[in-house]
């Protein structure tokens, strides 16, 4: 049993362990990382599990090298991931950008803790959300998922791999300390019931291959080293042939290509769930562990006769702009609980576009949002809105 990549069955495991198992189930066979609380258990489990399934685990000298190793492994044809937390995530930013410009599939799990800097190593935060969007320099699109339970750590890590393979970019799993360290039931399905996506490979003759020419879906097929195709991988702006092209037209083509492949596939990427929206006056919009605070607040509020609804964001980047715009036009207010002093709420507010008030329920980190605080905010905004 121990040698199986998919541990089918019911488990009581923490989110970090579930993340590792999700990666293995998705076909990940390479992990490079540097242990850091509260993400260490991902690396720890991968170090034990990868050798059992013919994969490779490398503990790197730091997170800069870890991210670089992922890109190399991916170009070598492997599905690769790393896990980290705030300080390591900061170090990964430069090579994350290299992954984006070279269109390299891989997965980075950030188990967020309180920051800035070393901050609160063992305590929760959700304050890397804008870093996830814009942390590397230059203009690009990114995909980020936010699990709210160990089960979703498993499920969303698989989806992160599938999205990264399909759209050829690093995909972020933006977890947090509580989801990472919390033990809960995790159901791992039969191997055959798990959808696994593999990157598109070129089908043309090697002489005709252009490694960065997108197909109709906006994504170029990927040839890996050893596949017999001529490929050149550079962090410089490049043409469709992969070679450096230092001119504005090439920059325009390349950056637009990086952005468009995500924008044109938004509907396939964006995922959210709704609860009680039909009659909702005030809607809580939450992601990650704050979904659970919001859901408790919703039940408490409904018991008191408050018409609350919930939007649970499974993906936070790209943000569900059109959906929020429509929602904002038919409710009295939107409230976002998040463990920071206002990050995703800025995006929520932008998308609401003034159609309804938008409020933050946040604090600087160290604990999850108390449902009672969310309910107080609901009461306050109902008074204002009358």
């Amino acid at each position, binding site marked *: 049993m121990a040698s199986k990549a998919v541990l089918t069955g019911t488990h009581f495991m923490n989110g970090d362990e579930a993340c590792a198992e999700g990666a293995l189930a998705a076909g990940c066979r390479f992990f490079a990382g540097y242990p850091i609380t509260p993400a260490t258990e991902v690396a720890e489990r991968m170090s034990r599990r990868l050798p059992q399934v013919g994969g490779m685990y490398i503990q790197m000298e730091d997170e800069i090298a870890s991210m670089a190793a992922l890109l190399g492994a991916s170009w070598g044809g492997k599905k690769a991931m790393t896990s980290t937390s705030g300080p390591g995530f900061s170090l990964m930013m430069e090579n994350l950008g290299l992954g984006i410009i070279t269109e390299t599939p891989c997965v980075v799990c950030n188990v967020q803790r309180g920051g800035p800097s070393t901050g609160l190593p063992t305590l929760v935060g959700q304050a890397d959300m804008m870093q996830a969007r814009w942390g590397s320099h230059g203009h690009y699109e990114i995909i980020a998922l936010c699990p709210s339970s160990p089960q979703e750590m498993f499920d969303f890590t698989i989806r992160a791999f599938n999205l990264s393979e399909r759209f050829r970019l690093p995909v972020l799993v933006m977890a947090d300390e509580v989801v990472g*360290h919390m033990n809960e039931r995790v159901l791992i399905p039969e191997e055959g019931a798990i959808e696994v996506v593999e990157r598109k490979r070129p089908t043309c003759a090697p002489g005709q291959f252009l490694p960065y020419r997108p197909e109709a879906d906006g994504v170029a097929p990927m040839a890996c080293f050893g596949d017999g195709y001529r490929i050149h991988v550079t962090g410089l702006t490049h043409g469709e042939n992969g070679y450096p092209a230092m001119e504005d037209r090439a920059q325009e083509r390349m950056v637009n290509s990086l952005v468009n492949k995500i924008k044109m596939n938004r509907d396939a990427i964006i995922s959210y769930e709704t609860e009680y929206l039909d009659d909702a006056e005030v809607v809580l919009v939450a992601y990650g562990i704050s979904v659970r605070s919001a859901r408790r607040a919703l039940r408490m509020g409904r018991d008191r006769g408050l018409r609350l609804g919930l939007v649970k964001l499974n993906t936070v980047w790209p943000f569900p702009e059109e959906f929020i715009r429509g929602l904002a036009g038919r409710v009295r207010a939107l409230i976002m609980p998040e463990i920071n002093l206002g990050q995703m709420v800025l995006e929520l507010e932008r998308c609401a576009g003034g159609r309804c008030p938008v409020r933050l329920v946040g604090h600087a980190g160290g604990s999850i949002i108390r449902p009672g605080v969310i309910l107080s905010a609901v009461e306050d905004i109902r008074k204002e809105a009358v």
Partner: protein
Amino acid sequence: METEILITGFGGQGIVLTGNILGMAATLYDNRHATMTQSYGPEARGGSCSSQVVISDEPILFPYVENPQVMICMSQAGFQKNCAMLQEGGAMLWDSDLVKPAELSDQWRCYNIPATRFAEEMGNKMMANIVMLGFVAAVCALVDPESLRQAVLESVPPKTRDKNAAAFDRGREYGGEILKGRARQEH
């Protein structure tokens, strides 16, 4: 109905493992729902730590323990810091050699056991948490006692199963005797 359990002690006592075993028993063997969260500082051993378990028949929304019905204390600091949280009618369990309660509410059901001393007598004080779990099985109706025993055996290194089973049984028997003694006093 959610039952909240707070387990406190210091790093190295297996406080998190204790919570994990409780949650595992509830989830995997009793087919109920449980969450276990942990709280500790940057230091590896010796610092205060706690694990928080919620057990319910329904999926659990909020995983923090704020109004525990059961508190298990394996250190004086853990007792002092947290005892005020215990609900009226709640069960307070502590290691009688490690915790000297200054005052106990008459609203609590109180049970104590020299778990660490028993574990030392059985050859390894690291098993104090398992003795305590046996005690929990006897005095609190949190999970099926056999589920808890099974979860203990699944969670410890295979070579130490017999010793841990004996540690669990020792705590369970001690708890059973306390309950019998109290029943006699009441009659």
